[in-house]
């Protein structure tokens, strides 16, 4: 290669090239799987209309290209996808891209908030528990972690709603903003935040438990390593050992988990968005499945695949930044 680029760019480019076949395979797989499921868009439409005659149904199918062999349908879809044309949503009567963009912001906000809270709180609590291992503090934290871990997010969502919306009336019961209030500026921001508090809590607690448990184990392991003993023999105090020697090394496995779990958080957001009627991708995905809105569903999956690929790339960058032994190549 005669081209000289900074290593980070070469790395990013290489990862991008690697991601293309991954995304294509995901799309083909999903397409085929969805075709295997009984019922299509026309069935759903006809069902809503309360039934129609066979000729009308056949005409509809032909119009949507659903009468073609599955390979032809797949080929047409993939060709359009190559130019980022996601097709038309017959349910929303809009291009799928528009529908997706309307919803993307909400989901990203929910996920970013949930994951950052889970990650930060998880590592802090995990580190505290590890440093006071087997004490009352540790027990309290560990038991709480176990409770969060064992509570399904739909149950937690409903309980939160019951307490904070229905009984106490402190927080709105659902949606992303107060309808017909037309807030602007900071009022709008505060309104959105209030709507996000409960969904974020419901989604983050289970992941918080993951990070907490992993961080506790990781810190305890690193604290026993030789270089921590070396630092102690140099005369460093315990606090310094934690901040300068243990934390960064202990974080490595937790960061790996962060990248791996991003996709499951996307999955988790389906439940939470549906319960709190948040107009995000998760809720959209649920409705699209019910309504057999194939194009929209495929669009969501495409977007999620891209998000997961990008997040994993960012995680690897973060990992390389944290671990001096890793060189990007």
């Amino acid at each position, binding site marked *: *290669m005669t081209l000289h680029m900074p290593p980070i760019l*070469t790395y990013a480019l*290489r990862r991008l*090239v*690697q991601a293309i076949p991954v995304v294509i395979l995901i799309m083909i797989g999903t397409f085929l799987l969805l075709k295997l499921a009984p019922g299509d868009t026309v069935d759903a439409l006809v069902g809503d209309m309360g039934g129609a005659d066979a000729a009308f149904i056949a005409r509809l199918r032909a119009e949507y290209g659903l009468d073609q062999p599955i390979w032809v349908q797949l080929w047409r879809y993939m060709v359009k996808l190559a130019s980022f044309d996601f097709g038309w949503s017959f349910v929303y009567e809009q291009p799928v891209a528009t529908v997706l963009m309307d919803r993307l912001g909400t989901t990203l906000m929910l996920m970013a908030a949930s994951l950052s809270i889970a990650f930060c709180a998880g590592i802090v609590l995990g580190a505290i528990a590890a440093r006071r291992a087997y004490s009352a503090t540790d027990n309290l934290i560990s038991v709480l972690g176990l409770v969060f871990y064992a509570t399904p997010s739909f149950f937690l969502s409903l309980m939160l709603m019951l307490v904070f919306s229905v009984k106490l009336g402190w927080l709105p019961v659902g949606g992303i903003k107060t309808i017909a209030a037309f807030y602007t500026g900071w009022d709008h921001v505060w309104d959105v935040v209030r709507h996000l508090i409960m969904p974020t809590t419901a989604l983050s607690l289970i992941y918080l438990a993951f990070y907490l448990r992993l961080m506790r184990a990781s810190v305890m392991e690193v604290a026993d*390593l*030789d*270089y921590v*003993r*070396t*630092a*102690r*023999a*140099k*005369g*460093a*105090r315990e606090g310094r050992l934690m901040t*300068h*020697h243990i934390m*960064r*090394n202990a974080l490595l496995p937790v960061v790996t988990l962060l990248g791996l779990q991003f996709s499951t958080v996307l999955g988790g957001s389906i439940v939470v968005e549906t319960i709190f009627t948040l107009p995000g991708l998760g809720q959209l995905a649920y409705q699209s499945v019910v309504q057999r809105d194939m194009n929209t569903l495929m669009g969501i999956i495409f977007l999620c695949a891209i998000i997961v690929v990008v997040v994993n790339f960012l995680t690897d960058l973060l990992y390389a930044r*944290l*671990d*001096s*032994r890793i060189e990007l*190549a």
Partner: protein
Amino acid sequence: MTQTPPPVLDLCKLEISLPKGADRPYALEGLDLTINAGEIVCLVGESGSGKSLCAGAIMGLLPEPHVRVTGGAIRFMGEELRGKSDAEMRKLRGADISMIFQEPMTALNPQKTVGWQIDEVLRLHTKMTKAERKARALEMLERVHIPEPSSAYNAYPHQISGGQRQRVMIAMSLVLSPKLIIADEPTTALDVTTQLQILKLIRELQEEEGAGVLFITHDFGVVAEIADKVAVLCRGELVESGTTDAVLNRPQHPYTRALIGAVPALTPPPVKAASDAPVVLQGTGLKKTFAARGGLLSGKRKAVTAVKDLTFELRQGETLGVVGESGSGKTTVSRIVTRLLECDHGSVELDGTDLLAATPKELRALRQHIQMVFQDPMASLNPRKRVVDLIAQGPIVHGADPKKAREDAKRLLELVELSPAAANRFPHEFSGGQRQRIGIARALAMEPKVIVADEPVSALDVSVQAQVLKLLADLRDRLNLSLLFVTHDLRVAAQLCDRIIVMQKGEIVESGLTAEVFANPQHPYTQNLLSSIPGRDWTPPSLHTDAA
């Protein structure tokens, strides 16, 4: 009027208790030890003797409250250290008392640069400015003879070699000119040539600084190399102490005598009459390269040659030693000839059949003729299986009657001098030496013609090592076995091997009869290896004990 200064370290009846359920109530029982300024005192003992806990007690870094000092005095420069607060101890640690650890790879934080880690000591104990600290760190790196101190300053530990890492560790512990240096097996993890350099360095700096050194080791060769005085520990008790000359050459206590008697002398076995026994294992033109890490698209996969063009032959009843330092390719050789690793080129003929060209089915049949004994007996025996099943597994896989195979396994246990009652126990119930015996019995169960042993005694204490070596030699002679013996330890090679191959960077630099190579090494690398053996000028006195 001159007043004699107090000794740097004075241990008086030091007693360290172990938690309930340990194999003995005290890790150390009444240890008396004095170290004066400018003196190197070696504390010698086998694993579990309590020598490392002694270091922990002086530093105030015992894993309390499970293990703690329960009696005696620890006086540093005449001042009692017991009962000092943690803050007071922190002031001493790293500044007046410093430590050098065994494993330089793990003893340095992988995420911080070498410079940062040396700088940390200065930051903790002095009020020097940033520039002063950097200058001091660079000066120390210079003093431990690290080439290009300024680039080493910015390097991470994984970017420098093992020997250099230990130099960094030494620079770090000496940066504030401590009065007492505790070195806990500082050269055990290093290659023999590097070990000698590090020992010389410790000696050199200690003389310049006039510090007292407590040097913990299990290796009498190292003791002979560096010590002024020696103290021998046996299960927490001081059994003998005195000057190096007295302890090494005229040991009094039976335990010391047994230990020293077990040190392999550097005298190779007598030359056997030129063997015309048939060749059982012949390697020809062996070559193996490892592709380095790197993706398909990065375009920079650099191959590492582990073995290039290696040819050797092993005759029946003979022991061929493969010696070399880490990275010489000796372990790769042992894996290739057993076909645990596919080789790029060449052939390995076992009794005239090419092992490397064999089909998977043929290979399975051939495997019973060539068996391996591994370095770490704990890691190479399945912890969930009983000893009898571990040994009988091979024959059963090869079609033996399970009942008969188990009977044979019990006989094999006797052959390796273990009680047949051991058959129904699990590997963790045995000591290291006993486990290695099980490993040998497991290899013998297949009735192999050739045994490939990869560092089989490196993980064992010296007295156990002597026993296992003796067993291997015995079995070889009784069963007319051929041994391919891979080792880094030239003393061990001298004791057991009829012929040796010396490897460096994947190539044979010298080969021949052990006695001849040791007496008159031709290649500069062999000469360097032999002159680096710790304590090469000291011949262990021949002591008549039955422990070995």
